[in-house]
């Protein structure tokens, strides 16, 4: 198997019964594994709720480490739509040409640096920097702020030992509280200020609501983007022909990005709380239990995707759920897509080949399923075009 491959651990369970069960802090989760079940469940926001106790729909559950509700992700209709409408235009800004140009500058600088060095650890020295610097564009704040986030290191929201480290999470929460207070004192044209000035149902957003949006913006787009960027580099290291093809046919870039997101599925799954006794793929789901929508499994469902375990760089029919599905689909998707589109463009233009020198896979443990989602570290060497 190639070093860059992400095997599909769900295939057998998906085909045999359609779900898997995992234990999570005495609040078990039924993981839905088939694309159609995942999509149908994501659409049924009445029976499968997001607006449960803050942290409960996340797996592993964060109920014991946070009270702040993440917005709009932990809110159901009709309020969900109100919040989402407030945010939609702002999160579409990455489509604008000047946003794209700024991203291109950020990424070009990183690739040029990478070309100068003999050995580069991609997660920490490339992807984390890229993600942090790009985030300054999304928040519309000075570029220098990214130094603070890079300084937090890879594992700011959780420690190496535990995915649920309350002290670690506090670093982010305290930081956001301080930024909100700063924006109250000196309003500007950054996301904090825009949110503080927004109205919902005829009143201003509260500080707690602004915090809920900001936590989501920070946390939701961190590991996911870092994994997608790192996995892309590992893939191109072993598939220089794809890099060459993107250089010759830049028009397939958007297709390539969707295919990489399908294959990598940077977020494995997301939970919902069942509101009434029901069934999911002929399996009883009791009220007040949890199910999860396993994007990673759905994206390899052979009943929809031909050759699901291969990256087909110009795949045309690609109804993947890598950015989620339904009303809660990823708010940061436009930003993430633009990051990846620009990254592919710059790599195709400047890089001839990449060697993988050393790697340590990051394997998630979901009970009966062990899933590689990316790397703990991966050392590479970039070679430029002459």
């Amino acid at each position, binding site marked *: 198997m190639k070093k860059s491959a992400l095997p599909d651990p769900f295939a057998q369970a998906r085909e045999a019964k359609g779900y898997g069960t995992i234990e999570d802090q005495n609040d078990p989760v039924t993981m839905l594994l088939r694309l159609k079940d995942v999509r149908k469940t994501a659409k049924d926001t009445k029976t499968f709720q997001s607006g449960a106790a803050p942290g409960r729909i996340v797996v592993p559950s964060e109920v014991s480490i946070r009270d702040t509700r993440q917005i709009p992700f932990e809110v159901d209709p009709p309020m969900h739509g109100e919040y989402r409408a407030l945010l939609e235009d702002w999160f579409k800004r990455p489509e604008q040409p000047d946003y794209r140009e700024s991203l291109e500058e950020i990424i070009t600088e990183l690739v040029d640096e990478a070309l100068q060095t003999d050995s580069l650890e991609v997660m920490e020295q490339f992807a984390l920097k890229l993600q942090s610097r790009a985030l300054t564009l999304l928040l519309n704040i000075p570029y220098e702020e990214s130094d603070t986030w890079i300084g937090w290191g890879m594992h700011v929201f959780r420690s190496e030992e535990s995915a649920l480290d309350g002290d670690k999470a506090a670093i982010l929460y305290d930081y956001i509280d301080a930024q909100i207070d700063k924006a109250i004192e000196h309003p500007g044209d950054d996301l904090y200020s825009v949110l503080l000035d927004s109205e919902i149902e005829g009143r201003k957003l509260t500080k707690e609501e602004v915090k809920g949006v900001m936590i989501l913006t920070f946390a939701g787009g961190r590991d996911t983007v870092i994994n997608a960027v790192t996995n892309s580099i590992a893939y191109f290291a072993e598939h220089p022909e794809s890099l060459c093809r993107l250089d010759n046919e830049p028009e397939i870039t*958007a297709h390539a*990005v969707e295919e990489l997101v399908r294959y990598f599925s940077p977020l494995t799954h997301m939970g919902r709380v069942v509101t009434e006794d029901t069934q999911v793929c002929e399996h009883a789901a009791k009220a007040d239990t949890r199910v999860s929508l396993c994007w990673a499994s759905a994206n390899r469902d052979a009943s929809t995707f031909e050759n699901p375990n291969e990256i087909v760089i110009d795949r045309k*029919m690609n*109804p993947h759920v890598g950015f989620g599905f*339904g009303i809660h*689909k990823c708010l940061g998707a*436009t930003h993430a897509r633009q990051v990846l589109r620009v990254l592919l463009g710059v790599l195709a233009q400047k890089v001839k080949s990449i060697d993988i020198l050393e790697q340590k896979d990051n394997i998630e443990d979901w009970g009966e399923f062990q899933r590689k989602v990316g790397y703990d570290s991966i050392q590479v060497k970039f070679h430029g075009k002459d």
Partner: protein
Amino acid sequence: MAKITFITSDNETIVAEASSGSVMELAKDNNVTGIDGDCGGVCSCATCHVHVAAGDFDKVGAPGEIEADMLELEDNYNEHSRLCCQIDISDAIDGVTLHVVN
């Protein structure tokens, strides 16, 4: 050359022409409100949902199975629904009218 008429949900009419590409790309090039085309045309985002005018549906044709599976779960789905990134532009669809759903 195919001439396509888009009617947005605010009842704005936009007429656009092209000889190749997809209808979603044509809509984006002409800033048709309600056609976002987020996924770039791979049938994964459904932000390019249109209702084909009843009299034009035969010209455009029915969705394939994968597209139909996506559409069935969409709000405002009806028997004339299509994802317009899956409609290729050709002379065969000259003159059709599409109602933008979003």
